[in-house]
């Protein structure tokens, strides 16, 4: 599927043999690439160029520190205050607030809606995000009306991770593609915890035992900051769990 993953810098020219060519499907460009008509594709960020020949798409994997809301992302938002029809919540510090409609929860009517206090956190999905308007989020799926795990997160603790690590955790094949095995290893050691990963760099960990939550948080932070490989992650988890006992 993917053979080469070269490092590209903004303005580099992409070797033509990397660009997937298919006569049936149009070429899809993901984040980090820009199309200059008529036929130039240049990367605009520094990162790894990934090409997917099956789906005929290509994009750049890059790490940045500021989260930019994109529709469809699952994020953890913190409620700041309540307005007449919306909650104003923050996705990342020192950015404009996103709006979360009061009724955007599963089976919520004007009388039975959940009352969220300022300072509480919710797991939400980004609905609308463009450079002209403040972002909007929702806690219920528009089409089905079900929350699918979105909504208020009670108890637990929130840890900050880098955006790239959050993306790796959220990947479907986190073990092969993302090289992240921390969570599985922690579960294998017998720790009982719940986890919600926000693409905006926040991870919520809930559980009965505060020690377990602290160990999970430390494991995530050290994997992220130390950029540990799969084997090192397993060693880290064993060390932390032993220290906990």
């Amino acid at each position, binding site marked *: 599927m993917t053979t080469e993953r070269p490092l590209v810098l903004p303005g580099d020219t992409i070797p033509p043999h990397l660009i997937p060519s298919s006569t049936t499907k149009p070429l899809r460009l993901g984040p980090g690439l820009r199309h200059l008509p008529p036929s130039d594709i240049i990367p605009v960020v520094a990162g790894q160029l990934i090409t997917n020949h099956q789906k005929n798409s290509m994009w750049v994997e890059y790490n940045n520190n500021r989260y930019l809301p994109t529709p469809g992302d699952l994020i953890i938002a913190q409620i*700041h*205050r309540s307005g007449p029809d919306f909650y104003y919540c923050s996705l990342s510090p020192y950015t404009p607030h996103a709006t979360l409609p009061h009724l955007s929860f599963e089976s919520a009517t004007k009388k039975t809606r959940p009352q969220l206090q*300022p*300072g509480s956190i919710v797991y939400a999905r980004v609905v609308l995000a463009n450079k002209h308007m403040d972002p909007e989020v929702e806690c219920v799926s528009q089409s089905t009306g079900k929350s699918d795990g979105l909504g208020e997160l009670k108890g637990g603790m929130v840890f900050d991770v880098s955006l790239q690590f959050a993306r790796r955790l959220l990947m479907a094949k986190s073990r092969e593609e993302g090289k992240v095995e921390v969570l599985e290893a922690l579960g294998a050691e017998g720790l009982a915890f719940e986890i919600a990963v926000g693409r905006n760099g926040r991870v919520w960990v809930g559980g009965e035992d505060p020690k377990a939550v602290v160990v999970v948080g430390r494991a995530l932070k050290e994997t992220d900051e130390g950029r540990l490989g799969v084997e090192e992650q397993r060693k880290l988890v064993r060390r932390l769990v032993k220290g906990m006992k």
Partner: protein
Amino acid sequence: MPLDTSTYGLALLRVDGRRWNELRRIHAQIRTQAAADGSSYLEMGHTKVMCVVTGPSEPGPRRGAAGGAAGGGGGAGGQSKDAEVVVNIVIAGFSSVDRKRRGRGDKRTLEMQSTLANTLAATLHTHLFPHSQINISLHVLSQDGSLLAALINAATLACVDAGIPMTDYVTACTAGSTSTYAANDEGADPLLDLNHQEEQELPGLTVATLGDSDRVVALVCESRVQISRLEGMLAVGVDGCKQVREILDQVIKAQGQKMILEGTVDKGTGLNDMDLD
């Protein structure tokens, strides 16, 4: 040297004739200004302080983190769950021996404002008044040592006068030690309630406690002192705070009596043990 070693050792009297554990004369009055919600006037020896309390009232323009005057009290970021205690101290230029005019941004004054705000926020029931502000203004008319202690006591009295619910009195006083920092003499006495001369030459600390307990709300020590002297000074200071509390309590009760006699307040059922003549 306020403790001339030749005389102190003989009679154990300080320059103003006090023993080691005697407070100076404390004179206090409340309801000195009818216009304000609460007001008080306190003298500890020659240190004279006036205090005026306004509140709880509408909060002023939101200052956020980059504020000039000090604010205290708990509260979350955007909306305060508690009332904010804002303290303003004006030290008159004529209050000390040398006339000295202090600017608005004087760091020592800002630190005292912050200390006072945080000290009172520990006892005032600020959670009863969300989204509001309690303004405490203090004027120092004369300084003769124990300034921070006098400010705390005056602010407590004024808050009681204003009727702001509080857990207990916060009273403060200073304590010092006759030993210098270098000497490790066991025979050094702790001293209670330092005046200006003693404050300048001897190590001392200001301690504020909550009511009758031993719980310290504020402790400020700005001089060098041996760690072994600390326990004695702290014990004497805490004891002195209890004495101050008794005196302030008397003042409040006397004012209460006066108000009952004048008819402004009805005598309550719980006041049977008050002796009204």
